[in-house]
């Protein structure tokens, strides 16, 4: 029987390059970005070329006292505190060589875990560029563990790391630990060590470290991220030990230990690390001054958003028209001639192509959006946005970090909701989860584009302006809702905000395109699955029952009106008429609850099946623009367009979001609450816009 695979965990400070290294070592493509807290869950992979080695990528942490859920995942994996899981067999500790002191802090704790350990000094290129020098051999001798210098982003040093991993001993090791504890703590430590051993929270090699961690009073606080599951008896025992030694929330002995660790690190580095003599203020400082400036910072942010939306509207248009022509004209034509007249051709042309094809047309726009977001993430700008926004967010009752998930929501709310794991307080995290879906995600983009281009004509400035207004509406509403939630059901103190600001890096095009691709692929998958399925269903609803030939002769739109869809539409109509929508839009709205893009598919199918005269020349945009009420009025007036977009900004029309909220909050209450409040808000806002507009005479 083959030996069970070795399990090696990759761990280090946030943003030290763990995932970049993990991707190198396993060939996977996990998300990498230049800010702390990108990886929020554990991922697993097999070391390339070595089947017997399993690697784990963990969320980054600053110490083994976690402050948020993602860091807790890391701690529990490392100490084997997850249920039904043993500790890893070995560690790869990743250190950002350009930030040695603070990165070594975690390393001092990890070395005490007693596992075979390799220390990787990543970002060696940054070190070189600064002119600093690190003697890895010397550092290795002092740490008592092999040290490898790498550049994970270029692959330098990876081979050496692999061979060091091969040579790593398998037995537990005891690294020299010069870290003495203050005498007064010895008794407390001994007591806790006993408890830890009895409860199987640690074995002989890491009991001292585990005991040290339990010196922190926060492990006894149920709501705290560093909470450790203990039986009531043990918790009481630990509490008694804390009391006996005057340990309480204001006085954690780990603070003293932290100071000792830093003193120790100073000794380690003395002689092994030499800083360059002169420090020239780098580009990072200058860019920072600009981007966090009172005026320029805001201008820069608005400029970036404007550039992105202009790119989406103008640059993508030729590509979009090309795809449109290819699918809706050529492909539809070919299918029609090859298959000939009949129900199958109708299904393919009016159902599948009109539904899926019209959604796929938006692929270039989606790619541009994702590319911009990837570039922003990789540049180091995200953390600055959190920093700049903190002043505003603290007034809402959250902190700047909540803005990072909200910003990633511009791409998709699902990963954004996962990313809220980095938020320390449970109530703040919930609040962020509940408002993140209000940010306009990529699925809304096609809806905005089709409505704006159908209704607001050719003026590009107006189009971009309206689009920006929609993004702004989502953001402002999210902040207002957060404010209300934090004042009512999720009341709690304004959290502390302590965030590392990473150095700016020039985003590399390759990885950004890769990350763009992995995100946009989801869009294509969705088009091929849920949108395809919905298109077929919608087509069938619109196609059956067939009207008699005589009826069709009698007037246009008869087939659609008497189809199942038409009947459903008439049921919906009274509900949505006050918003200014006809029953076709109503069906689109209702089917969008499966996924927002289905609105486009619905319009495609509705106007595809509805066309008795088969003139396939008009694009969907033109068809939408020329749609009429039975009495000849235009359906899509500017007012209706705005009302419809406002509905899409605010409504919760995404199954995946609801599923992920269920998963992250652990019950159905919150997703139901979120769905309800968003949909009610959407309806009311849309109503106010349309009726208000009519009163003002805008209709």
């Amino acid at each position, binding site marked *: 029987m083959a030996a069970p695979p070795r399990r090696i965990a990759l761990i280090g400070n946030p943003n030290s390059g763990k995932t970049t290294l993990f991707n190198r070592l396993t060939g996977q493509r996990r998300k990498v970005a230049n800010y702390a807290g990108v990886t929020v869950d554990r991922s697993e992979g097999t070391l390339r070329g070595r089947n017997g080695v399993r690697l784990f990528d963990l969320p980054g942490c*600053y*110490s083994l*006292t976690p*402050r948020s859920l993602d860091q807790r995942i890391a701690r529990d994996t490392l100490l084997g505190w997850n249920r039904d899981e043993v500790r890893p067999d070995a560690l790869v500790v990743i250190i950002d060589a350009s*930030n*040695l*002191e*603070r990165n070594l*802090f975690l390393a001092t704790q990890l070395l005490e875990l007693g596992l075979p350990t390799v220390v990787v000094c990543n970002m060696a290129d940054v070190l070189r560029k600064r002119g600093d020098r690190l003697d890895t051999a010397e550092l290795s001798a002092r740490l008592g563990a092999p040290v490898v210098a790498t550049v994970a982003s270029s692959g330098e040093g990876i081979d050496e790391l692999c061979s060091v991993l091969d040579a790593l001993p398998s037995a537990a090791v005891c690294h020299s630990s010069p870290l*003495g*504890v*203050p*005498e*007064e703590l010895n008794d407390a430590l001994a007591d806790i060590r006993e408890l830890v051993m009895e409860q199987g929270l640690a074995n002989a090699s890491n009991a001292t470290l585990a005991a040290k961690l339990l010196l*922190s009073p*926060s492990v006894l606080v149920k709501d*705290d*991220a560093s909470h450790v599951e203990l039986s009531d008896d043990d918790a009481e025992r630990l509490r008694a030990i804390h009391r006996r*030694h*005057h340990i*309480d*929330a*204001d*006085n*954690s*002995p*780990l*603070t*003293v230990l*932290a*100071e*000792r660790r*830093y*003193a120790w690190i100073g000794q380690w580095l003395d002689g092994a690390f030499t800083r360059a003599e002169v420090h020239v203020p780098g580009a990072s*400082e200058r860019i*920072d001054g600009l981007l*966090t*400036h*009172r005026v320029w*910072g805001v201008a820069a942010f608005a400029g970036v958003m404007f550039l992105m939306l202009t790119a989406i509207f103008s640059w993508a248009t030729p590509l979009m028209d090309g795809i449109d022509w290819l699918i809706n004209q050529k492909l539809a034509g070919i299918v029609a001639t090859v298959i000939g007249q009949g129900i199958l051709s109708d299904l393919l042309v009016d159902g599948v192509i009109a539904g899926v094809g019209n959604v796929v047309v938006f692929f270039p726009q989606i790619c541009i959006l994702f590319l911009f977001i990837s570039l922003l993430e990789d540049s180091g700008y995200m953390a600055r946005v959190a*920093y*700049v926004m*903190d*002043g*505003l967010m*603290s007034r809402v009752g959250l902190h*700047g970090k909540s803005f990072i998930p909200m910003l990633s929501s511009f791409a998709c709310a699902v990963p954004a909701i996962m990313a809220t794991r980095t938020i*320390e*307080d449970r109530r703040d995290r919930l609040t962020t989860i509940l408002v993140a879906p209000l940010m306009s995600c990529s699925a809304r983009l096609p809806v905005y584009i089709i409505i704006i281009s159908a209704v607001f004509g050719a003026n590009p400035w107006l189009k971009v302006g309206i689009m920006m207004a929609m993004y702004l509406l989502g953001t402002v509403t999210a902040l207002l809702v957060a404010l209300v939630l934090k004042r009512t059901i999720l009341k709690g*103190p*304004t*959290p*502390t*905000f*302590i*965030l*590392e*600001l*990473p*150095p700016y890096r020039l985003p590399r095009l390759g990885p950004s395109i890769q990350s763009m691709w992995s995100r946009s692929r989801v869009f294509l998958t969705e088009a091929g699955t849920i949108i395809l399925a919905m298109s077929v269903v919608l087509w069938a609803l619109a196609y059956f029952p067939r009207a008699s030939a005589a009826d069709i002769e009698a007037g246009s739109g008869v087939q659609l009106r008497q189809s199942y869809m038409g009947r459903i539409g008439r049921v919906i109509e009274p509900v949505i008429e006050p918003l200014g929508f006809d029953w076709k839009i109503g069906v689109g709205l209702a089917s969008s609850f499966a996924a927002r893009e289905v609105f486009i598919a619905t319009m495609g199918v509705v106007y595809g099946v509805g066309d008795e005269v088969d003139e396939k020349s008009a694009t969907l945009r033109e068809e939408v623009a020329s749609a009429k009420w039975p009495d000849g009025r235009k359906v899509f007036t500017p007012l209706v367009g705005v009302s419809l977009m406002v509905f899409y900004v605010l409504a919760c029309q995404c199954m995946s979001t609801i599923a992920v909220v269920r998963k992250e909050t652990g019950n159905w209450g919150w997703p139901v609450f979120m769905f309800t409040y968003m949909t009610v808000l959407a309806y009311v806002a849309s109503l106010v816009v349309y009726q208000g507009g009519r009163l003002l005479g805008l209709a």
Partner: protein
Amino acid sequence: MRCDVPCPVRACWVAGMRTRRNRSAVAGECGPKRMLYRPDGVAIEYQEKPMTKMNAAENSGDRILTLDQLEVGCCGTIENVAARNGCGQFLAEMGLTNGARVTVSGTAPLGDPIEVSVRGYRLSLRRSEASTIRVLPSPAQGLAT
């Protein structure tokens, strides 16, 4: 976990480095006694005591400021961190320990939070947390008093 807004309480070392001359005043104050550990591991009893005018005056006499009072571009050496509610532990773990040099490198557009550089990296924190960190400004930087 959160740190309280700065409260008008400051730590006085009963036996220890800074405010020995205050000992009699401290002894008379009420408030819970706590144990603190100096970097060399010696335990010290400390007692909370409301900030008085005299303390404030004494502060400026020693030119000890809190981190949020340091102007942009100025640097100083951390004297002690009195953050409460677990925040102190995190600040220490992030490298804001006694003796560490910090430079205030900027403030956010709304004036809060501030950006500091410590141990070769950048960190942002709110003024309320910064005000729990007492620093001795470096004379080389020419701080206006």
